[in-house]
Protein backbone atom coordinates (compact mmCIF):
# COMPACT_ATOMS: atom_id res chain seq x y z
CA UNK A 1 0.00 0.00 0.00
CA UNK A 2 1.57 3.25 -1.15
CA UNK A 3 0.73 6.53 0.54
CA UNK A 4 -0.87 9.39 -1.38
CA UNK A 5 1.20 12.56 -1.00
CA UNK A 6 -0.23 16.05 -0.71
CA UNK A 7 1.16 19.57 -0.36
CA UNK A 8 0.14 21.28 2.86
CA UNK A 9 2.51 24.25 3.03
CA UNK A 10 4.28 26.64 0.67
CA UNK A 11 7.05 29.19 1.14
CA UNK A 12 8.85 31.33 -1.41
CA UNK A 13 11.60 33.92 -1.65
CA UNK A 14 11.53 35.17 -5.20
CA UNK A 15 12.99 38.18 -7.00
CA UNK A 16 9.42 39.39 -7.67
CA UNK A 17 7.96 38.66 -4.26
CA UNK A 18 9.09 37.50 -0.83
CA UNK A 19 6.41 35.52 0.96
CA UNK A 20 3.42 33.70 -0.48
CA UNK A 21 1.02 36.64 -0.65
CA UNK A 22 3.44 38.99 -2.40
CA UNK A 23 4.48 36.25 -4.79
CA UNK A 24 0.91 35.23 -5.64
CA UNK A 25 -0.01 38.83 -6.39
CA UNK A 26 3.13 39.29 -8.48
CA UNK A 27 2.65 36.24 -10.69
CA UNK A 28 -0.99 37.08 -11.33
CA UNK A 29 0.01 40.55 -12.46
CA UNK A 30 3.01 39.41 -14.46
CA UNK A 31 5.26 41.58 -12.32
CA UNK A 32 8.96 41.25 -13.13
CA UNK A 33 11.69 41.13 -10.48
CA UNK A 34 14.70 41.82 -12.69
CA UNK A 35 16.90 44.85 -11.99
CA UNK A 36 20.20 46.37 -13.06
CA UNK A 37 23.15 45.64 -10.74
CA UNK A 38 25.98 48.18 -10.67
CA UNK A 39 28.25 45.59 -9.04
CA UNK A 40 28.01 43.43 -12.18
CA UNK A 41 28.77 46.43 -14.40
CA UNK A 42 31.76 47.36 -12.24
CA UNK A 43 33.07 43.83 -12.63
CA UNK A 44 32.65 44.15 -16.42
CA UNK A 45 29.99 41.49 -16.80
CA UNK A 46 28.35 41.31 -20.22
CA UNK A 47 25.00 40.75 -18.50
CA UNK A 48 24.49 43.35 -15.75
CA UNK A 49 20.91 42.46 -14.83
CA UNK A 50 19.57 39.83 -12.46
CA UNK A 51 16.84 38.76 -10.08
CA UNK A 52 17.56 39.24 -6.39
CA UNK A 53 14.91 38.98 -3.62
CA UNK A 54 14.75 42.01 -1.33
CA UNK A 55 15.27 41.08 2.34
CA UNK A 56 15.65 43.75 5.03
CA UNK A 57 17.89 43.37 8.09
CA UNK A 58 14.76 43.31 10.28
CA UNK A 59 13.33 40.49 8.20
CA UNK A 60 16.51 38.43 8.67
CA UNK A 61 16.08 38.69 12.45
CA UNK A 62 12.57 37.27 12.18
CA UNK A 63 14.11 34.01 10.95
CA UNK A 64 17.65 33.72 12.27
CA UNK A 65 19.06 34.53 15.72
CA UNK A 66 21.73 37.22 16.21
CA UNK A 67 24.18 34.38 16.88
CA UNK A 68 23.27 32.62 13.63
CA UNK A 69 23.72 35.93 11.81
CA UNK A 70 27.22 36.54 13.24
CA UNK A 71 29.69 36.14 10.40
CA UNK A 72 26.78 35.11 8.18
CA UNK A 73 27.41 35.58 4.46
CA UNK A 74 25.39 33.02 2.55
CA UNK A 75 22.43 34.44 0.65
CA UNK A 76 21.22 31.00 -0.45
CA UNK A 77 20.99 29.71 3.12
CA UNK A 78 19.13 32.87 4.13
CA UNK A 79 16.60 32.47 1.30
CA UNK A 80 16.23 28.76 2.01
CA UNK A 81 15.63 29.29 5.73
CA UNK A 82 12.99 31.95 5.07
CA UNK A 83 11.16 29.87 2.46
CA UNK A 84 11.45 26.67 4.50
CA UNK A 85 10.27 28.21 7.76
CA UNK A 86 7.41 30.01 5.98
CA UNK A 87 6.27 26.76 4.36
CA UNK A 88 6.44 24.98 7.71
CA UNK A 89 4.28 27.58 9.43
CA UNK A 90 1.96 27.76 6.42
CA UNK A 91 1.33 24.04 6.92
CA UNK A 92 0.18 24.82 10.46
CA UNK A 93 3.30 23.30 12.03
CA UNK A 94 5.10 25.07 14.85
CA UNK A 95 8.70 26.20 15.14
CA UNK A 96 9.99 25.85 18.67
CA UNK A 97 13.68 25.48 19.61
CA UNK A 98 12.63 23.21 22.48
CA UNK A 99 10.30 20.98 20.45
CA UNK A 100 10.50 17.22 20.77
CA UNK A 101 12.53 15.51 18.05
CA UNK A 102 10.23 14.34 15.27
CA UNK A 103 11.43 11.11 13.63
CA UNK A 104 8.64 11.22 11.04
CA UNK A 105 9.64 14.57 9.51
CA UNK A 106 12.70 15.33 7.40
CA UNK A 107 13.94 17.50 4.60
CA UNK A 108 15.46 17.27 1.15
CA UNK A 109 16.58 20.83 0.44
CA UNK A 110 18.84 21.27 -2.56
CA UNK A 111 21.35 23.81 -3.75
CA UNK A 112 24.01 24.21 -6.42
CA UNK A 113 26.82 25.62 -4.34
CA UNK A 114 26.49 27.00 -0.85
CA UNK A 115 27.76 30.28 0.56
CA UNK A 116 29.91 31.31 -2.37
CA UNK A 117 30.49 34.77 -0.83
CA UNK A 118 31.49 33.17 2.46
CA UNK A 119 33.86 30.89 0.58
CA UNK A 120 35.44 33.87 -1.16
CA UNK A 121 35.89 35.63 2.19
CA UNK A 122 37.57 32.49 3.60
CA UNK A 123 39.89 32.08 0.63
CA UNK A 124 41.17 35.64 0.97
CA UNK A 125 41.95 35.01 4.64
CA UNK A 126 43.58 31.66 3.90
CA UNK A 127 45.83 33.08 1.21
CA UNK A 128 46.84 35.76 3.69
CA UNK A 129 47.97 32.94 6.04
CA UNK A 130 45.06 33.69 8.41
CA UNK A 131 43.55 30.21 8.55
CA UNK A 132 43.43 30.44 12.35
CA UNK A 133 41.17 33.46 12.08
CA UNK A 134 38.40 31.87 9.99
CA UNK A 135 36.20 31.20 13.00
CA UNK A 136 33.56 28.49 13.26
CA UNK A 137 31.18 29.72 10.57
CA UNK A 138 32.92 28.77 7.31
CA UNK A 139 32.17 25.05 7.22
CA UNK A 140 28.45 25.20 7.97
CA UNK A 141 27.86 27.93 5.40
CA UNK A 142 29.96 26.48 2.60
CA UNK A 143 29.18 22.77 2.92
CA UNK A 144 26.67 21.82 0.24
CA UNK A 145 24.28 20.56 2.92
CA UNK A 146 24.44 23.82 4.86
CA UNK A 147 20.83 24.65 4.06
CA UNK A 148 19.39 21.30 5.16
CA UNK A 149 21.59 21.43 8.27
CA UNK A 150 20.23 24.87 9.19
CA UNK A 151 16.62 23.84 8.57
CA UNK A 152 17.02 20.47 10.33
CA UNK A 153 18.11 22.25 13.48
CA UNK A 154 15.59 25.07 13.34
CA UNK A 155 12.69 22.64 12.88
CA UNK A 156 14.00 19.72 14.96
CA UNK A 157 13.73 17.18 12.12
CA UNK A 158 14.52 13.56 12.97
CA UNK A 159 13.97 11.85 9.62
CA UNK A 160 16.35 12.17 6.65
CA UNK A 161 18.01 15.60 6.49
CA UNK A 162 19.88 16.03 3.23
CA UNK A 163 20.73 18.27 0.31
CA UNK A 164 20.47 17.16 -3.29
CA UNK A 165 22.27 18.81 -6.19
CA UNK A 166 21.56 18.40 -9.88
CA UNK A 167 22.14 21.83 -11.40
CA UNK A 168 18.94 23.51 -12.60
CA UNK A 169 16.93 20.34 -11.95
CA UNK A 170 17.72 20.48 -8.22
CA UNK A 171 14.45 21.93 -6.92
CA UNK A 172 12.20 19.68 -8.95
CA UNK A 173 14.29 16.65 -8.04
CA UNK A 174 14.08 17.53 -4.31
CA UNK A 175 10.28 17.44 -4.47
CA UNK A 176 10.29 14.01 -6.10
CA UNK A 177 12.83 12.68 -3.59
CA UNK A 178 10.67 13.76 -0.66
CA UNK A 179 7.56 12.46 -2.42
CA UNK A 180 9.11 9.00 -2.84
CA UNK A 181 10.04 8.87 0.82
CA UNK A 182 6.50 9.57 1.97
CA UNK A 183 4.92 7.37 -0.70
CA UNK A 184 7.04 4.46 0.48
CA UNK A 185 6.17 5.00 4.13
CA UNK A 186 9.66 6.08 5.22
CA UNK A 187 8.47 9.49 6.41
CA UNK A 188 5.17 11.24 7.10
CA UNK A 189 6.22 14.76 6.36
CA UNK A 190 9.08 16.14 4.24
CA UNK A 191 10.06 19.76 3.76
CA UNK A 192 11.33 19.88 0.18
CA UNK A 193 12.74 22.71 -1.89
CA UNK A 194 15.92 24.39 -3.00
CA UNK A 195 17.85 27.64 -2.84
CA UNK A 196 20.48 29.52 -4.77
CA UNK A 197 22.91 32.31 -3.88
CA UNK A 198 22.86 35.53 -5.85
CA UNK A 199 25.66 37.68 -7.17
CA UNK A 200 28.71 37.74 -9.40
CA UNK A 201 30.51 34.76 -7.91
CA UNK A 202 27.66 32.40 -8.71
CA UNK A 203 26.73 34.01 -12.04
CA UNK A 204 30.20 34.73 -13.45
CA UNK A 205 30.75 31.31 -15.00
CA UNK A 206 27.51 31.61 -16.96
CA UNK A 207 28.43 35.10 -18.14
CA UNK A 208 31.73 33.70 -19.40
CA UNK A 209 29.84 31.02 -21.36
CA UNK A 210 27.83 33.81 -23.03
CA UNK A 211 24.55 32.11 -22.15
CA UNK A 212 23.19 35.17 -20.33
CA UNK A 213 21.68 38.06 -22.29
CA UNK A 214 23.81 41.17 -22.72
CA UNK A 215 21.19 43.06 -24.72
CA UNK A 216 18.98 44.34 -21.92
CA UNK A 217 21.25 46.16 -19.51
CA UNK A 218 19.15 49.28 -20.14
CA UNK A 219 15.83 47.44 -20.12
CA UNK A 220 16.16 44.86 -17.34
CA UNK A 221 12.45 44.06 -17.02
CA UNK A 222 12.32 43.08 -20.68
CA UNK A 223 15.48 40.99 -20.51
CA UNK A 224 14.04 37.56 -19.75
CA UNK A 225 12.13 36.47 -22.88
CA UNK A 226 11.30 32.75 -22.85
CA UNK A 227 9.69 31.47 -26.07
CA UNK A 228 10.18 34.85 -27.75
CA UNK A 229 11.77 35.30 -31.18
CA UNK A 230 13.95 37.99 -29.61
CA UNK A 231 15.13 35.83 -26.69
CA UNK A 232 18.87 36.37 -26.34
CA UNK A 233 19.97 34.30 -23.37
CA UNK A 234 18.80 33.85 -19.81
CA UNK A 235 18.77 36.39 -17.00
CA UNK A 236 20.28 35.07 -13.75
CA UNK A 237 18.10 34.91 -10.67
CA UNK A 238 18.24 33.62 -7.10
CA UNK A 239 16.02 32.81 -4.16
CA UNK A 240 14.31 29.74 -2.72
CA UNK A 241 11.09 27.78 -2.89
CA UNK A 242 9.78 25.31 -0.32
CA UNK A 243 6.89 22.89 -0.06
CA UNK A 244 5.69 20.80 2.86
CA UNK A 245 4.80 17.33 1.55
CA UNK A 246 2.75 15.07 3.74
CA UNK A 247 0.94 11.77 3.51
CA UNK A 248 -2.73 12.34 2.79
CA UNK A 249 -3.54 10.40 5.94
CA UNK A 250 -1.42 12.68 8.10
CA UNK A 251 -2.83 15.81 6.44
CA UNK A 252 -6.43 14.67 6.99
CA UNK A 253 -5.67 13.67 10.57
CA UNK A 254 -4.38 17.18 11.28
CA UNK A 255 -7.18 18.72 9.28
CA UNK A 256 -4.52 20.60 7.32
CA UNK A 257 -5.16 22.85 4.35
CA UNK A 258 -4.29 20.95 1.15
CA UNK A 259 -2.92 22.87 -1.82
CA UNK A 260 -2.62 20.00 -4.30
CA UNK A 261 -1.60 16.38 -4.64
CA UNK A 262 1.70 15.11 -6.05
CA UNK A 263 0.52 12.36 -8.38
CA UNK A 264 3.98 11.23 -9.43
CA UNK A 265 6.86 12.06 -11.70
CA UNK A 266 10.11 10.90 -13.12
CA UNK A 267 13.83 11.70 -12.99
CA UNK A 268 16.34 10.60 -15.61
CA UNK A 269 19.44 11.58 -17.57
CA UNK A 270 20.31 11.73 -21.22
CA UNK A 271 23.78 10.41 -20.52
CA UNK A 272 25.28 13.15 -22.73
CA UNK A 273 24.52 10.95 -25.74
CA UNK A 274 22.40 11.41 -28.91
CA UNK A 275 22.74 15.17 -29.02
CA UNK A 276 22.92 15.51 -25.25
CA UNK A 277 26.08 17.15 -23.86
CA UNK A 278 27.23 18.56 -20.56
CA UNK A 279 25.12 21.63 -21.33
CA UNK A 280 22.49 20.49 -23.85
CA UNK A 281 19.68 17.97 -23.38
CA UNK A 282 19.35 14.66 -25.17
CA UNK A 283 15.84 15.11 -26.67
CA UNK A 284 14.99 11.44 -26.45
CA UNK A 285 15.71 11.43 -22.71
CA UNK A 286 13.63 14.57 -22.13
CA UNK A 287 10.69 12.97 -23.92
CA UNK A 288 11.21 9.73 -22.03
CA UNK A 289 11.20 11.63 -18.73
CA UNK A 290 7.90 13.35 -19.51
CA UNK A 291 6.28 10.13 -20.75
CA UNK A 292 7.40 8.18 -17.70
CA UNK A 293 6.09 10.93 -15.42
CA UNK A 294 2.67 10.59 -17.06
CA UNK A 295 2.76 6.80 -16.59
CA UNK A 296 4.01 7.08 -13.01
CA UNK A 297 1.18 9.50 -12.18
CA UNK A 298 -1.32 7.07 -13.67
CA UNK A 299 -2.87 9.68 -15.97
CA UNK A 300 -3.05 10.13 -19.75
CA UNK A 301 -1.20 12.83 -21.63
CA UNK A 302 -4.55 14.35 -22.59
CA UNK A 303 -5.34 14.99 -18.90
CA UNK A 304 -2.65 17.66 -18.59
CA UNK A 305 -4.23 21.11 -18.51
CA UNK A 306 -1.14 23.23 -18.15
CA UNK A 307 2.63 22.95 -18.37
CA UNK A 308 5.16 24.95 -16.43
CA UNK A 309 8.25 24.53 -18.56
CA UNK A 310 11.94 24.92 -17.96
CA UNK A 311 12.07 27.50 -20.81
CA UNK A 312 15.07 29.66 -19.97
CA UNK A 313 15.01 32.11 -22.90
CA UNK A 314 17.89 30.57 -24.80
CA UNK A 315 17.91 28.97 -28.24
CA UNK A 316 16.78 25.72 -26.60
CA UNK A 317 13.20 26.87 -25.89
CA UNK A 318 11.88 25.68 -29.26
CA UNK A 319 13.51 22.29 -28.75
CA UNK A 320 11.86 22.01 -25.35
CA UNK A 321 8.42 22.79 -26.77
CA UNK A 322 9.03 20.25 -29.53
CA UNK A 323 9.93 17.67 -26.87
CA UNK A 324 6.68 18.35 -25.02
CA UNK A 325 4.62 18.00 -28.23
CA UNK A 326 6.28 14.67 -29.02
CA UNK A 327 6.19 13.29 -25.47
CA UNK A 328 2.51 14.12 -25.03
CA UNK A 329 1.58 13.62 -28.67
CA UNK A 330 -0.31 16.89 -28.54
CA UNK A 331 0.19 19.98 -30.67
CA UNK A 332 -1.50 23.02 -32.14
CA UNK A 333 -4.81 23.74 -30.43
CA UNK A 334 -4.68 20.41 -28.65
CA UNK A 335 -1.59 21.46 -26.68
CA UNK A 336 -2.01 22.41 -22.97
CA UNK A 337 -1.38 25.93 -21.71
CA UNK A 338 2.33 26.54 -21.23
CA UNK A 339 4.22 29.19 -19.28
CA UNK A 340 7.63 30.05 -17.88
CA UNK A 341 8.08 31.87 -14.58
CA UNK A 342 11.54 32.83 -15.79
CA UNK A 343 9.99 35.63 -17.84
CA UNK A 344 9.39 37.41 -14.52
CA UNK A 345 12.19 36.24 -12.21
CA UNK A 346 14.93 35.03 -14.52
CA UNK A 347 16.63 31.70 -14.15
CA UNK A 348 17.01 31.07 -10.42
CA UNK A 349 19.40 28.15 -11.16
CA UNK A 350 19.27 25.58 -8.34
CA UNK A 351 16.25 27.40 -6.88
CA UNK A 352 14.36 27.48 -10.20
CA UNK A 353 12.57 24.13 -9.89
CA UNK A 354 11.21 24.80 -6.42
CA UNK A 355 10.16 28.44 -6.95
CA UNK A 356 8.48 27.46 -10.22
CA UNK A 357 6.77 24.49 -8.56
CA UNK A 358 5.36 26.81 -5.90
CA UNK A 359 3.95 28.94 -8.74
CA UNK A 360 2.53 25.84 -10.45
CA UNK A 361 0.83 24.64 -7.27
CA UNK A 362 -0.65 28.12 -6.69
CA UNK A 363 -2.16 27.94 -10.17
CA UNK A 364 -3.96 24.71 -9.28
CA UNK A 365 -5.08 26.00 -5.90
CA UNK A 366 -6.39 29.32 -7.22
CA UNK A 367 -7.38 28.12 -10.70
CA UNK A 368 -5.48 30.44 -12.98
CA UNK A 369 -2.62 30.37 -15.46
CA UNK A 370 0.00 33.05 -14.81
CA UNK A 371 1.10 35.12 -17.80
CA UNK A 372 4.23 34.84 -19.90
CA UNK A 373 5.63 38.35 -20.09
CA UNK A 374 8.05 39.55 -22.79
CA UNK A 375 6.59 37.10 -25.28
CA UNK A 376 4.62 39.25 -27.69
CA UNK A 377 6.79 37.91 -30.50
CA UNK A 378 6.46 34.14 -30.11
CA UNK A 379 9.34 32.33 -31.77
CA UNK A 380 8.16 31.05 -35.17
CA UNK A 381 9.57 27.60 -34.49
CA UNK A 382 7.29 27.48 -31.45
CA UNK A 383 4.18 28.89 -33.13
CA UNK A 384 4.66 26.24 -35.82
CA UNK A 385 4.24 23.60 -33.13
CA UNK A 386 1.55 24.94 -30.82
CA UNK A 387 -1.27 27.44 -30.97
CA UNK A 388 -0.22 30.87 -29.73
CA UNK A 389 -3.32 30.98 -27.54
CA UNK A 390 -1.67 28.37 -25.35
CA UNK A 391 1.07 30.85 -24.44
CA UNK A 392 -1.07 33.16 -22.32
CA UNK A 393 0.13 36.74 -22.02
CA UNK A 394 -2.33 37.82 -19.35
CA UNK A 395 -3.38 35.87 -16.28
CA UNK A 396 -6.15 33.52 -17.33
CA UNK A 397 -8.85 32.31 -14.93
CA UNK A 398 -9.70 28.79 -16.01
CA UNK A 399 -10.42 25.37 -14.60
CA UNK A 400 -7.24 23.37 -14.08
CA UNK A 401 -6.99 19.84 -12.76
CA UNK A 402 -3.56 18.64 -13.71
CA UNK A 403 -0.30 20.54 -14.15
CA UNK A 404 3.04 19.20 -15.35
CA UNK A 405 6.29 20.83 -14.20
CA UNK A 406 9.66 19.97 -15.70
CA UNK A 407 13.23 21.13 -15.13
CA UNK A 408 16.38 20.29 -17.05
CA UNK A 409 19.96 20.83 -15.96
CA UNK A 410 23.63 20.81 -16.88
CA UNK A 411 24.91 17.27 -16.87
CA UNK A 412 21.97 16.34 -19.14
CA UNK A 413 19.62 15.66 -16.21
CA UNK A 414 15.82 15.88 -16.29
CA UNK A 415 12.91 15.86 -13.84
CA UNK A 416 9.17 16.08 -14.41
CA UNK A 417 6.40 16.22 -11.77
CA UNK A 418 2.65 15.83 -12.16
CA UNK A 419 0.56 17.89 -9.71
CA UNK A 420 -3.22 17.52 -9.31
CA UNK A 421 -5.79 19.84 -7.88
CA UNK A 422 -7.13 18.49 -4.58
CA UNK A 423 -10.86 18.60 -3.96
Amino acid at each position, binding site marked *: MKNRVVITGLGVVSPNGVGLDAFTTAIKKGQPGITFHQQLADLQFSCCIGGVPLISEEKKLEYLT*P*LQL*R*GFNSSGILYGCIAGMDAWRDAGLSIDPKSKLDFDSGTVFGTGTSGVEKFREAIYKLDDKQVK*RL*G*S*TVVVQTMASGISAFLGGILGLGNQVTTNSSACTTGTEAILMGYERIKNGQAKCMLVGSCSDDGPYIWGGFDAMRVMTYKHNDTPEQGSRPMSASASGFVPGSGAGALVLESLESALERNAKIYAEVLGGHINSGGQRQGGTMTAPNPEAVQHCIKEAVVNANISAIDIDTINGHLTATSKDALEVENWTKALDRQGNDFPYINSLKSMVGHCLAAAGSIESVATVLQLKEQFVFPNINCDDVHPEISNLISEEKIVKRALKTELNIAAKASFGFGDVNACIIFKRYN
Partner: protein
Amino acid sequence: MTKDELIAKLKTIVQPYIQDEAAFDNLSEDTDFINDLKINSANLVDVILDVEDEFDIRIENDDMEKMISVKAAMGIVNEKLAEK
Protein backbone atom coordinates in the same frame (compact mmCIF):
# COMPACT_ATOMS: atom_id res chain seq x y z
CA MET B 1 43.59 47.09 33.74
CA THR B 2 41.92 45.97 36.99
CA LYS B 3 40.53 42.52 37.45
CA ASP B 4 36.96 43.84 37.36
CA GLU B 5 37.61 45.74 34.14
CA LEU B 6 38.99 42.61 32.54
CA ILE B 7 35.99 40.52 33.65
CA ALA B 8 33.64 43.18 32.30
CA LYS B 9 35.38 43.10 28.91
CA LEU B 10 35.26 39.30 28.75
CA LYS B 11 31.59 39.40 29.70
CA THR B 12 30.82 41.64 26.73
CA ILE B 13 32.81 39.38 24.43
CA VAL B 14 31.04 36.14 25.39
CA GLN B 15 27.54 37.61 25.46
CA PRO B 16 26.55 36.75 21.84
CA TYR B 17 27.44 33.09 22.36
CA ILE B 18 25.95 32.27 25.75
CA GLN B 19 22.87 30.09 26.11
CA ASP B 20 22.33 30.34 29.84
CA GLU B 21 21.18 33.81 30.84
CA ALA B 22 21.24 33.16 34.60
CA ALA B 23 24.82 31.92 34.56
CA PHE B 24 25.73 34.92 32.40
CA ASP B 25 24.13 37.38 34.83
CA ASN B 26 26.19 35.85 37.64
CA LEU B 27 29.40 35.64 35.61
CA SER B 28 32.49 35.57 37.83
CA GLU B 29 36.09 34.40 37.73
CA ASP B 30 34.87 30.85 38.37
CA THR B 31 32.45 30.69 35.45
CA ASP B 32 33.09 27.93 32.90
CA PHE B 33 32.33 28.73 29.27
CA ILE B 34 30.79 25.40 28.32
CA ASN B 35 29.43 23.96 31.56
CA ASP B 36 28.00 27.21 32.97
CA LEU B 37 27.36 29.53 30.03
CA LYS B 38 26.44 26.59 27.73
CA ILE B 39 28.45 28.07 24.89
CA ASN B 40 28.45 25.69 21.91
CA SER B 41 31.95 24.20 21.79
CA ALA B 42 32.26 25.19 18.11
CA ASN B 43 31.81 28.82 19.16
CA LEU B 44 34.82 28.75 21.52
CA VAL B 45 37.09 29.56 18.57
CA ASP B 46 34.92 32.60 17.83
CA VAL B 47 35.23 33.77 21.45
CA ILE B 48 39.00 33.47 21.13
CA LEU B 49 39.06 35.47 17.88
CA ASP B 50 37.01 38.19 19.55
CA VAL B 51 39.41 38.20 22.53
CA GLU B 52 42.35 38.55 20.11
CA ASP B 53 40.70 41.51 18.42
CA GLU B 54 39.67 43.23 21.65
CA PHE B 55 43.12 43.06 23.25
CA ASP B 56 45.19 43.09 20.06
CA ILE B 57 46.97 39.87 21.00
CA ARG B 58 47.49 36.49 19.31
CA ILE B 59 46.58 33.30 21.15
CA GLU B 60 48.37 30.13 20.05
CA ASN B 61 46.93 26.62 19.89
CA ASP B 62 48.28 25.52 23.28
CA ASP B 63 46.71 28.49 25.03
CA MET B 64 43.47 28.10 23.08
CA GLU B 65 42.93 24.65 24.50
CA LYS B 66 43.20 26.00 28.03
CA MET B 67 40.80 28.89 27.49
CA ILE B 68 37.64 27.25 28.76
CA SER B 69 36.81 29.46 31.71
CA VAL B 70 36.83 33.11 32.70
CA LYS B 71 39.78 32.53 35.01
CA ALA B 72 41.87 30.77 32.35
CA ALA B 73 41.03 33.47 29.82
CA MET B 74 42.09 36.19 32.27
CA GLY B 75 45.39 34.43 32.90
CA ILE B 76 46.17 34.11 29.20
CA VAL B 77 45.14 37.66 28.36
CA ASN B 78 47.26 39.08 31.20
CA GLU B 79 50.24 37.01 30.14
CA LYS B 80 49.97 38.14 26.51
CA LEU B 81 49.49 41.77 27.50
CA ALA B 82 52.59 41.59 29.71
CA GLU B 83 54.60 40.25 26.77
CA LYS B 84 53.65 43.20 24.60
